[in-house]
């Protein structure tokens, strides 16, 4: 029987395999950031251990860095300590660090691919759940906790029970690919399979609806695999993948021969079997807007908010969850999504802060001003994205529309730096999680695509971007 792409990568990384036990797998790349690593380095010191492969370990600071003027000192003392601690740890253990002043600094999942560090067929880990992003390149990319970070630093391996392969086929063609984006595809998937729908699996996204996407759009899809509970998300590499990674700063010297070895091998065989399947047809899907407090609580922009009964389909826990979500979000069932007014707009995060996201959003706002009651910001995913966008003049388009144009980092996606919502504020956000308090205590998050966020900024409420000319 043939093998899935996941099984091929898995099998080529086995170090120890014993029946009824987890498998020890080799890790090709370890990405490190300031929040989930300090205790891991402390653990190494306490046990007199070294980092086994500092050459395969890359660090940056992204989660709690300020996105304002980088020449000023960091006011938040605890953030400052975490940032200095990472600097010290990288120095002590010989790890390459892209620090706060590096032109390569940025969200770890944005810089990995951008620098050619993320490669097809490899295993990648990072102490961050959105590591799944790198799966867009056909890498098996896993988010891990701090104990596993320490284990990988010490041994370049980790123990893992083999996840099950899950096929998600995305069929059809979007009628308006500028208005209906990768974010809308992945939110539609999660709306259908639920936030636990991928638990214990590695999703492989396949079909015309996936191969049609650019690499940056594919990253948006794989990024949110974790929001469906999956261990990882994967897309088989193709010419778009190989072209994207060619001539990056850290692209291997023998790249063309690697591409030759990947071409025929890194794909699921025709007779391979998946343990689970789901098909999404995208011909007619609409832009998506989340209304609740998990990414599965999402509907079309043209819909009204479902009642807890409609949403839960008889499941009492789901019903209670929906009631609590509506209460937290201060929304009523039956309200049209387009009637929801917003206070803030956040274009950023590892889901949607790459160059293409900013280009698409800029088309919506060009020559316009944001609604006077809205505060809006763009936080590029990396300093390199920021520089490229500035070379294209995108910064001026955003600034002229009264957006704030910031330095790179995770920012308002998770409320660890000063960029947070005030209690009760409602935000159209291009990030990945609408959990209670995620963007700041009492803040209310609606997950949308960059174009939907930009349009909401202009109008002060959600609008259907299919009605705009975005070509």
């Amino acid at each position, binding site marked *: 029987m043939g093998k899935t792409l996941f099984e091929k990568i898995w099998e080529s990384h086995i170090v120890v395999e014993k029946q009824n036990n987890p498998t020890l797998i080799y890790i090709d790349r370890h990405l490190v950031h300031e929040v989930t690593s300090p205790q891991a380095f402390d*653990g190494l010191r306490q046990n007199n251990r070294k980092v086994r492969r500092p050459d395969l370990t890359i660090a940056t600071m992204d989660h709690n860095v300020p996105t304002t003027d980088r020449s000023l000192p960091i006011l938040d003392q605890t953030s400052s*300590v975490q940032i200095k601690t990472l600097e010290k740890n990288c120095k002590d253990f010989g790890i390459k660090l892209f620090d706060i002043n590096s032109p390569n600094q940025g969200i770890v999942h944005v810089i990995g691919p951008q620098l050619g560090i993320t490669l097809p067929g490899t295993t990648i880990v990072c102490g961050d759940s959105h590591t799944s992003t790198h799966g867009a390149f056909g890498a098996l990319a896993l988010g891990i*906790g701090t104990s596993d970070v320490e284990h990988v630093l010490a041994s370049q391996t980790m123990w893992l029970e083999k996840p099950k392969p899950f096929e998600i086929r995305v069929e059809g063609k979007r009628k308006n690919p500028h208005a209906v984006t990768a974010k809308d595809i992945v939110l539609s998937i999660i709306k259908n399979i639920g936030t636990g729908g991928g638990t214990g699996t590695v999703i492989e996204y396949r079909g015309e609806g996936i191969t049609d996407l650019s690499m940056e759009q594919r990253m948006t899809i794989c990024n949110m695999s974790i929001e469906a509970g999956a261990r990882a998300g994967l897309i088989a590499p193709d010419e778009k993948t190989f072209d994207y990674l060619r001539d990056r700063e850290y692209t291997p010297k023998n790249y063309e021969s690697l591409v030759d070895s990947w071409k025929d091998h890194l794909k699921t065989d025709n007779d391979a079997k998946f343990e689970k399947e789901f098909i999404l047809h995208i011909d007619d899907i609409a832009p998506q807007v989340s209304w609740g407090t*998990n990414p599965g609580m999402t509907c079309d922009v043209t819909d009204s908010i479902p009642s807890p009964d409609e949403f839960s389909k008889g499941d009492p826990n789901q019903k209670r969850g929906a009631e609590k979500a509506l209460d937290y979000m201060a929304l009523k069932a039956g309200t049209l999504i387009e009637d929801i007014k917003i206070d803030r707009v956040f274009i950023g995060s590892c889901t949607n802060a790459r160059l293409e996201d900013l280009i698409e959003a800029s088309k919506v706002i060009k020559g316009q001003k944001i609604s006077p009651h809205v505060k809006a910001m763009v936080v590029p995913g990396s300093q390199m994205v920021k520089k490229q966008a500035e070379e294209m003049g995108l910064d001026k388009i955003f600034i002229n529309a009264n957006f704030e144009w910031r330095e790179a980092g995770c920012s308002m996606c998770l409320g660890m730096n000063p960029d947070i919502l005030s209690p009760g504020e409602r935000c159209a956000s291009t990030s990945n999680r609408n959990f209670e308090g995620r963007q*700041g205590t009492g803040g209310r998050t609606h997950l949308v695509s960059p174009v939907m966020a930009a349009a909401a900024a202009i109008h002060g409420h959600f609008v259907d971007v299919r009605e705009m000319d975005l070509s």
Partner: protein
Amino acid sequence: MKGNIIKYARDNIDTDVIIPGTYLKIHDYAELATHAMEGLDPDFHSKVKEGDFILSGKNFGCGSSREHAPIALSHSGIKAVLALSFARIFYRNAVDGAFLLPIEIEQDAYDGISEGDEISIDVSINEIKNITKNQTYKMKPFSEIIGKIIAAGGLFKYKPDQD
């Protein structure tokens, strides 16, 4: 293991409500614990007692890979979380550091156990006893390796070669 139940009768308790992002900068676990569950239940810190258990629905611990989530619960006194299912990174983090027992339960236990009930858990026979209501439920057994890691006191104390 004996303790009282704090019940959150809903699915998808996420890591951001277990420990909000703003506290991930705290390295003192005792201080971290004072913010456990703050995003969902501001009274948690005042009501939790050493040895308590949390009971919840499906997909407990979904979201971030922050190990701070099981650490904050553990340092609040929580010895086990009983849930219909767990998000895998939370489950793994809980076991890796032996912070608390992630116990998968069936619907009967979820429905039968109420807030405040005193229960005892015996993992050697996969049994949960509700002392308050005099009921007994089965828990899903830990896989062999998970059981061994927990018994050893976490990933770094477990030595596979000694098997």
